[in-house]
């Protein structure tokens, strides 16, 4: 860039035009620039154009902006304290440092393994505290075992001649009677082993010939008790 030369027509610094326009040119340069404008038509035209633009903006500001009052700004003074969620807290925990995070993770793994080992040892101790069951069988049975009357072997081997049916004569209308079939043949009874305890089943006996299970006997027993 070239400096002004009031004695010549060499134009120079465009910045000086705006500096002069806004009154920010030092006094010495201002005088030199004014002297230059007197002899430099291009610079005078440039300055006039800049001044015209500035006046337009100045006028616009004066008409539109200056009458305006400064608005009242309301600032929401919220707390600057940050609110942390649990996720952020967890992130913060691991963001404190990689070494601390690694140590924390390692400690967590150790704690989990230790708990698992302790739990396993405790369950083994509990099993050891239970008394062993003797191999010979149960020690004793506190509950009484119900006894079932067992018939003698001869009674089982005694052949049944023919079923006897009790005939009750009454005036009630006759219903079709269910045929009673004799079971427990001789061959079947003979096959039973002698050392096995045979528990009689109700269906294996003729209710008419089996006196031990007759209801009449029970009733008579109750009657004798009452006497």
């Amino acid at each position, binding site marked *: 860039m070239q400096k002004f030369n009031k004695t010549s027509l060499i134009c120079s610094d465009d910045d000086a035009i705006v500096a002069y326009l806004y009154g920010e040119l030092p006094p010495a340069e201002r005088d030199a620039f004014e002297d230059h404008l007197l002899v430099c038509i291009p610079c005078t035209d440039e300055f006039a154009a800049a001044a*015209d633009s*500035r006046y337009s903006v100045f006028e616009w500001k004066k008409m*539109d902006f200056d009458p305006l009052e400064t608005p009242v700004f309301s600032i929401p003074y919220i707390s600057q304290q940050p609110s942390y969620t649990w996720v952020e807290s967890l992130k913060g925990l691991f963001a404190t440092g990689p070494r601390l995070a690694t140590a924390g993770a390692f400690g967590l793994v150790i704690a989990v393994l230790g708990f698992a080992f302790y739990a396993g040892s405790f369950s083994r101790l509990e099993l050891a505290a239970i008394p062993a069951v003797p191999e010979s069988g149960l020690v004793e049975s506190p509950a009484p075992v119900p006894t079932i009357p067992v018939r003698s072997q001869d009674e089982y081997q005694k052949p049944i001649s023919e079923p006897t049916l009790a005939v009750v004569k009454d005036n009630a209308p006759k219903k079709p009677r269910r045929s009673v079939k004799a079971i427990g043949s001789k061959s079947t009874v003979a096959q039973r082993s002698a050392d096995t305890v045979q528990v009689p089943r109700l269906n294996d006996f003729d209710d008419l010939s089996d006196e031990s299970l007759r209801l009449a006997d029970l009733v008579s027993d109750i009657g004798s008790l009452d006497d």
Partner: protein
Amino acid sequence: MYKTLTDEELVAMAVSNDQEAFGEIVRRWERKIFALCFGMLTREDEARDAAQETFIAAFKNLKSFRGEAKVSSWLHRIAVNQCLTTKRRNRTRSEDFLDDETNEAERVFMAPAHLSPSNVTEQGERLGLVRHAVGSLPVDLRQVIVMKEFEDMTFQEISDTLDVPLSTVKSRLYTALKQLKMKLDRLPMEVA
């Protein structure tokens, strides 16, 4: 007490939840920030909203202010960003035509009473052209001319605020005035 403190000291106090300190910052800069927003946006309501958003954003980002730049630079950057955001939003809405009509009515209403109706009309048209011309300048040029004309900042203050050399400020302002002149000479023919 607060009036004797520097901007940087006030910001440091505001970071410590001193609301009065930030209130003093707002009082110091509200007119200049409003002027900057008005010059950038050329509309009062938008300038008011942008200035409001500027101070809210500044308050929310107090802790991000590291003191490397001046508070004035920091506020101006926030304000310019807010203005650009508003401009982009308005561009998408495409309401410029209706807005111009509204402002035209307001401008005529606000005109001085001593002017004749013909003068009012002529002056209103010219102000509309100026507003349109300034609004169409590139952002860096518009910012400089608004800071100079609306905020009455010196070249050195603009240089410090924008963090650019002093010569850059002057050349930008000169270029802005030159382009403005060209636009003002050309716009009436374009409108006609």
